[in-house]
């Protein structure tokens, strides 16, 4: 069947089908806009149009208009009170949660594009490639955040990953960059293969790939016998484990984190910042959706699975956060340190997912959680991600700005920067202390909400106390290395032969930096607006 006849069939369905397709296309519009701007960018290059209009304008306008559409959908969803819409006969889902994440990712894309314009990392020649890859990766992440089907899950992950590999190796002349990219590709391909195997097992055993169906099928399977005792259940558990490997790779959880420090060190700071935030956020959205889908059957034996997954993720979170913080301590390269810090933060955020699954396993039991308690972990995770976006982006922006002037990303070259450029040092200090989680900076509230959710979950299982204690202990541990950077920048004396670094408050870069760090402060003082939005998004899962 050729494309033409497919298209005819698509258009000539029944009225209801056509209406559903039309609606799906409208709800899918942000992705389509982004795809359209990618095509435009490539066309502009073919016709040498990128000489006339710089490519970043295409990317910027494309991502901004996609963001506006998402905001409109958000507003519409708030009015309609429709809990969710299934797109494309069940491939994707449109609800408050996916809208939140798509808005988040597109908003972040705008910021990243602005940053690359300011720091000038892709030159005029490379710009079309760079922005094509960037927007392409974001399309994949958007798909991840609204996936409702195992196929879409894999498709989204791959669409997000492949451009990321290329972006990592974008600094073509640098050996380190290519090496990082290669490592990333090999690792990513391996993880994707394992995950695909898991997906095929799961789909084969359950006979469905739709998230909506998975819950009931899992319940049917596990009622035959839970745990490794029953052969079919054993296959399902194996499949879950394999899929978890894929997620662990995307989230850079220990022991699948090895690519992260190398990739971040090899990639430019802008790309590292992009990867550390956007791909994590999308992966968390997908993880939440997937893990809630397989445990969606209320009551019965499936709650045991929920508890098992929750505790497993909790243990993984503890190990990841601890390892990330300990490894970050000895780093001398700013990007590498931030990479380990990213690993640690993935650990903190995973605690929220773990708490949610553990709480979910108690529904209907003696410690049955209230609706408010069920919403808390997701709310905390979303708040954390939103703050994390600004604080991490701020830190990577500073790394990029300093690199542009000193051509170095070594922490030793940051010595005494406060005297040459107070704005850089103060903004860096704010971002770092927010990463530690000190009030009144935004990072504290993200951490607080997540710890509160974990605390809720301690009523269900004692192991959550371990998770909570590890979270607290890690906060103290992380202080060491964040504070070290602040110390290097603010207390040490700048060597006489060090290169001059200047950044005035009035320059575009200065204003951009102050906007980003200003948001960290804003989210630390005015908690309610974002917290309320996060609560709405969390309601999608109630």
């Amino acid at each position, binding site marked *: 069947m050729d494309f033409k006849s497919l298209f005819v069939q698509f258009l000539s369905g029944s009225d209801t089908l056509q209406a559903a397709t039309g609606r799906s296309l409208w709800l899918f519009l942000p992705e389509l806009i982004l795809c359209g701007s990618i095509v435009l960018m490539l066309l502009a290059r073919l016709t040498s149009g990128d000489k006339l209009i710089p490519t970043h304008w295409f990317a910027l306008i494309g991502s901004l208009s996609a963001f506006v559409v998402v905001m409109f959908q958000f507003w519409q969803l708030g009015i309609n009170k429709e809990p969710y819409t299934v797109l494309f006969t069940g491939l994707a889902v449109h609800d408050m949660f996916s809208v939140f994440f798509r808005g988040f990712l597109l908003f972040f894309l705008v910021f990243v594009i602005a940053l690359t314009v300011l720091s000038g990392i892709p030159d005029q020649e490379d710009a079309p490639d760079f922005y094509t890859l960037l927007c392409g990766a974001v399309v994949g992440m958007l798909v991840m955040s609204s996936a409702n089907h195992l196929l879409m899950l894999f498709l989204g992950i791959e669409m997000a990953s492949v451009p990321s590999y290329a972006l990592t190796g974008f600094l073509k002349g640098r050996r380190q960059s290519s090496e990082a990219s290669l490592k990333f590709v090999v690792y990513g391909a391996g993880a994707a293969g394992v995950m695909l195997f898991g997906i095929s097992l799961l789909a084969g055993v359950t006979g469905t790939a739709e998230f909506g169906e998975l819950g009931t099928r899992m319940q049917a399977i596990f009622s035959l016998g839970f745990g490794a005792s029953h052969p079919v259940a054993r296959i399902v558990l194996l499949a879950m484990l394999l899929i978890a490997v894929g997620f662990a790779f995307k989230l850079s959880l220990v022991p699948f984190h090895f690519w992260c420090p190398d990739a971040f060190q090899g990639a430019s700071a802008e790309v590292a910042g992009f990867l550390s935030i956007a791909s994590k956020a999308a992966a968390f959205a997908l993880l939440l959706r997937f893990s809630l889908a397989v445990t969606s059957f209320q009551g019965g034996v499936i709650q045991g699975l929920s508890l098992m997954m929750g505790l497993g993720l909790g243990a993984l979170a503890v190990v990841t956060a601890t390892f990330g913080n300990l490894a970050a301590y000895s780093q001398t390269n700013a990007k590498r340190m931030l990479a380990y810090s990213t690993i640690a933060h993935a650990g903190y955020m995973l605690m929220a997912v773990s708490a949610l699954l553990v709480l979910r396993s108690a529904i209907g039991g003696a410690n049955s959680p209230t609706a408010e308690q069920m919403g808390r972990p997701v709310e905390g995770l979303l708040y954390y991600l939103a703050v994390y976006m600004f604080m991490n982006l701020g830190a990577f922006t500073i790394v990029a700005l300093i690199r542009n002037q000193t051509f170095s990303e070594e922490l030793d070259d940051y010595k005494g920067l406060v*005297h040459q450029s107070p704005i850089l040092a103060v903004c860096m200090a704010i971002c770092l202390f927010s990463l530690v989680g000190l*009030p009144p900076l935004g990072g504290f509230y993200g951490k607080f909400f997540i710890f509160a959710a974990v605390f809720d979950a301690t009523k269900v299982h004692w192991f959550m106390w371990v998770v909570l204690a590890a979270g*607290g202990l890690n906060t103290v541990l992380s202080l060491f290395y964040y504070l070290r950077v602040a*110390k290097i920048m603010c207390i040490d004396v700048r060597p006489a032969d060090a290169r001059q670094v200047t950044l005035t408050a009035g320059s575009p870069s200065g204003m951009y930096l102050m906007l980003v760090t200003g948001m960290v402060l804003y989210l630390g003082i005015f908690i309610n607006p974002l917290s309320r939005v996060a609560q709405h998004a969390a309601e999608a899962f109630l």
Partner: protein
Amino acid sequence: MFSSEFLLSMIVFLPALWAIPLIWFDGQNKESMRYWTVLGTALTFVLTLQLWYSFDLTQGGMQHLFRYEWIPTWNVNFSLGVDGISLPLVVLTGLVTLLAALASWSIDKHVKGYMMLFLLLETGMMGVFLSVDFFLFYVFWEVMLLPMYFLIGVWGGPRREYAAIKFFLYTLAGGVLMLIAMLMFYFNSAGPNGEGTFDLIELANIAAGKGTAVRFSESLQLAAFIMLFIGFAIKLPSFPFHTWLPDAHVEAPTPISMILAGVLLKMGGYGIIRIAMPLCPYGAQYAAYFLVALGVFSIIYGAFAAMAQTDFKRLVAYSSVSHMGYVLLGLAVWKITEGRTSGADYWAMGINAAMFQMIAHGISSTGMFFMVGVLYDRVHHRDLNKFGGIAQLMPEYSGLAAVIFFAGLGLPGLCGFVGEIFSVLSCWNFDPLLAIIAASGVILTAGYILWTMQRVYLGPEYKGPHPEGITPFTAREKTVAYTLVVLAVLLGVFPNYLFSRMDKSIGGLVQSMSHTYDTHHGAGASMETTQVR
């Protein structure tokens, strides 16, 4: 004169707002920035005085209390208020900060950054003492950390980085424990369908079992009390958690040492009175003997450690450990006989004494650090064995310093005496043996202080380094010194001026806590079968 909202909010936020215009000051014009900071702290102090005079002595509860929603989804309020316990500390903070600002002329590098952090620090301190919401309290508690870290780390002595990070880590570790305790209270204060609360008054009412459906179970109170106590004992500092203090004090610049000793240490004691005790009466009672013993041990240990020092500032730092032991001692003398509180009046006296000791120590130790700083500015060393003969070169300074050191020693007629004597007296009811040990600490204190004075001020002539640097007392230094001396004498002679302000609030606290214990946990508990969550 002002509305409560305005007055309290301004006391908290005026310093931080005052720091903003400093951005546009000329970095070379150090003098103008110093005067600007002094003006800001002076205005704040005037506002705290306004609070002092508008305080109603006949009421024990919170005054000027107000609440605004801050994070409604979590039931967190921006609520400030003042009672007899926080009032003296707020005024002390205003005063010590003003004096420290006056002592900040010795800071010569990066004056702009220093002054901004200094003012930010004052906001954090005032916020801690005025918060009536646990969450807000925690936020302000942590807000102090950053400025303090940089103030020690940038403007401190040779080992400043080590001292600064040690201070930061200890306090942050305590803060995390406090955070977990805070979550415990929040979630356990929620009824079946109700929302939890962070409001300290409501939480204290729940702990006291006053007309609420929920109660804090005994195991919860114990666990929370341990966590809160460690958090506050680090700040106090009490024996096993005190090791950050000598380092931080020695390395910090003089004005910051004054604030550390004068205000920051009081936060530990304040936290125990305001949060740890009312929120977990059972835990407080359970641990009472241990706390008293720990307080006594800190007194003796601190005194011995002080005696062994050769660094003048380190000696004063260890004397703080010793003096703050009286605070812990006074707070904890809650005696139970046969399941009932006995001698509640003695306990009230103990808490009064602890509060008085905090204020007195705030004056005497601020003064001592200032006196050390005055000498250090001139001769650039603090080695006790290289001093001597200062009294002949700087007679006025030495006279004032003597009064301050005697106040620290606890000489009758000066402020240090009142707190020490009453806390030891109240301890006699609790356990005579511990009282005797605590009282003997006074001898050790006299020992190291007199020995220090002999080594520094007396003697025929000064033989140490930089004899040429010894210049007479400046007018600015005199202002600081005379203020502290006058206050030390006034408080020593008229202690009731302070007691009268605290009495009602402390009486209310003691009554409520002993009633709670007697009816819910002690002898009366068996008659009542309350549903305990």
